[in-house]
């Protein structure tokens, strides 16, 4: 399975490097060597035991190592005129940042940089040298190593000291190809001290081919900075969406991650947040609505490396048909991370007997003065509540919907952009009603 990629790299590594920035190439051979050693993750590994990638990764996918342009105008494909969600809007098609200027982004503060990773490497080599790969190259993970070997471009955002963005930055990832296709984007996001930014990532697929997206995002959140990361996935059933989000927090920073899978094929989100300064606040939540043969595996890791930090994790799944969900909540509290408060909750509803959920808290606590809790439940909709509502004249289907919607409400409540929360409520309701049964382009931007 790995062989075709190993051969590809050996034959074409100079071509790959030629079309990428030098700073990205510095660690490339080492990443490749690591991938050669690790291979793609298998279910034999503890961290991947719930999700088998073999079938998805053994197919033959095209890669665009020569960086040929894909003819697509995302502004045509995705009209973004949602009343209320005013954002700075950017597109990445496969792994290429869409360069065209957009009027909507005219008001982006001049000192903020948003561009392709490649451009950033050319124009801001110092920033890139300081941050690129700092979190990802240490990971003993086959997918991340693979990304390090093959990634040539991606999205770059830099928010300097004390600059606070007044509206969200929206990154629409579009997978577009005429043949089965794989893209390895690498994103880099840097917030300096006291900066504030909200990033809304929307994952979409447009063509009826098989896609593998193996994306790595590194985020650096400096002291007193506030960062919100929303990810909304609405991709088609033939998509394998492998996403690694690595966040590093410095002292007194505040991070919110909210990862919502509305529609997908096979999704693996690896999220790791390292609290490397005191008094960090971290809120990590997510929601999955899956049916048919969809699979979603959220593997999360919160690392309390320093004292006096607070983290809260909440993931909710609604699974129907023969869908499969998995959740891992790894919580690490270092020996010196006293006064840590870390909480974790995973609640799941299985709408029938054929849907499957695997959930695993993984607590590694080495400090003694801490408050930690975790809880996981897997259940059905509350029969008594169903009956109660029906005695008020609310039909079975509607009562079910109200309960499912109520179940997901607290994840939506964790969206700090009111217009997005409203939009999300509508999308979730549509999805639960079965009206979003296939990906129809950017539902955020319709």
């Amino acid at each position, binding site marked *: 399975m790995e062989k075709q990629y190993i051969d590809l790299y050996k034959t074409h590594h100079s071509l790959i490097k030629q079309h990428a920035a030098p700073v990205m190439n510095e660690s490339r051979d080492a990443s490749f060597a690591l991938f050669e050693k690790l291979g793609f993750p298998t279910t034999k590994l503890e961290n991947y035991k719930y999700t088998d990638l073999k079938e998805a990764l053994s197919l033959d996918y095209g890669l665009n190592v020569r960086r040929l342009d894909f003819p697509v105008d995302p502004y045509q494909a995705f009209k973004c005129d949602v009343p209320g969600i005013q954002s700075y809007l950017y597109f990445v098609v496969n792994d290429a940042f869409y360069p065209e200027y957009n009027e909507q982004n005219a008001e982006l503060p001049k000192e903020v940089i948003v561009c392709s990773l490649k451009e950033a490497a050319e124009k801001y080599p110092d920033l890139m040298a300081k941050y690129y790969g700092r979190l990802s190259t240490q990971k003993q993970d086959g997918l991340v190593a693979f990304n390090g070997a093959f990634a040539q471009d991606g999205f770059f955002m830099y928010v300097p000291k004390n600059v606070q963005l007044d509206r969200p930055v929206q990154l629409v990832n579009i997978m577009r190809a005429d043949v089965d296709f794989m893209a390895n984007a690498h994103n880099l996001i840097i917030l300096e001290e006291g900066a504030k930014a909200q990033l809304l990532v929307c994952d979409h697929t447009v063509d009826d081919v098989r896609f593998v997206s193996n994306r790595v995002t590194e985020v650096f959140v400096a002291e007193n900075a506030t960062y919100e990361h929303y990810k909304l996935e609405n991709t088609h059933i033939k998509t394998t969406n492998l996403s690694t989000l690595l966040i590093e927090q410095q002292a007194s920073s505040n991070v919110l991650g909210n990862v919502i899978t509305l529609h997908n094929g096979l999704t693996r989100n690896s999220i790791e947040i390292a609290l490397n300064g005191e008094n960090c606040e971290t809120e990590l939540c997510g929601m999955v609505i899956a049916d048919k043969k969809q699979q979603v595996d959220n593997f999360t890791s919160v690392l309390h490396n320093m004292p006096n930090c607070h983290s809260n994790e909440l993931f909710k799944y609604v699974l129907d048909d023969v869908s499969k969900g998995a959740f891992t909540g790894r919580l690490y509290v270092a020996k010196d991370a006293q006064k840590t408060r870390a909480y974790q909750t995973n609640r799941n509803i299985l709408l029938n007997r054929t849907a499957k959920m695997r959930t695993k808290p993984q607590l590694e606590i080495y400090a003694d003065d801490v408050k930690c809790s975790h809880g996981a439940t897997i259940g059905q909709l509350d029969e008594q509540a169903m009956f109660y509502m029906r005695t008020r*004249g609310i039909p079975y289907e509607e009562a079910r919907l109200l309960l499912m919607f109520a179940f997901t409400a607290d994840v939506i409540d964790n969206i700090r952009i009111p217009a997005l929360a409203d939009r999300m409520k509508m999308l979730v309701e549509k999805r639960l009603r079965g009206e979003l049964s296939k990906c129809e382009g950017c539902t955020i931007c319709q």
Partner: protein
Amino acid sequence: MLEIKNLHASINGKEILKGLSLSVKPGEIHAIMGPNGSGKSTLSSVITGNPAFEVTQGSIIFEGKDLQEMAPEKRANEGIFLSFQYPVEIPGVSMVNFMRTAINEQRKYRELPPISATDFLRIMREKKALVEMDNKLTNRSVNEGFSGGEKKRNEIFQMAMLEPKLAILDETDSGLDIDALRIVAHGVNKLKSPENATIVITHYQRLLEYIIPDYVHVLHDGRIVKSGGKELALELEARGYDWIKQEVAV
């Protein structure tokens, strides 16, 4: 209005109702009393169509229609309401949304358009006033964190909103303080008309001083074993159930 004949019902294979008959006409108030576990709540569950119970024999006819053919929501929209002995908490579903959905389903059933926002708010206000319900409660999730008494008051509020033809009040008095009891009973009486009927399930005479029954029935071991006028309730209060059990045993 309601004709129950020789009703047998069981849960998990265990028979609870063992040949119960009851006839209720418009405008009447029936009180059902009886020892714990005799099947009073089971009866209300069966009338409202709780899928946990299985009717094995007998019939329940409401306004000429066989209830057993109907889903719980249909029975509700036909005009049957149950004030639960143990109202259910539904976290995440707001009272307002819940009530609006219920009202609109009822209107849909009657082929009426959805209620306008202003009408809905006005009716909410009126009915809240009727049972003197705190504004804060209707801003919360259904019954979530409500006290025992608040839950009961909320049941009567919902009844006032839905204006049923047949209301079954299952121990609505338990958990209410004396003032609340009076207010709730007053609310029930306000909603009373010659067209609708009420079944009051209670252990205590006290409620029946406010809501005066036309008939009192004693339910024992899944059957109505004695029926009488309102004075039967007084007798039960004074003498307990043992004498009836003995009468039945003889």
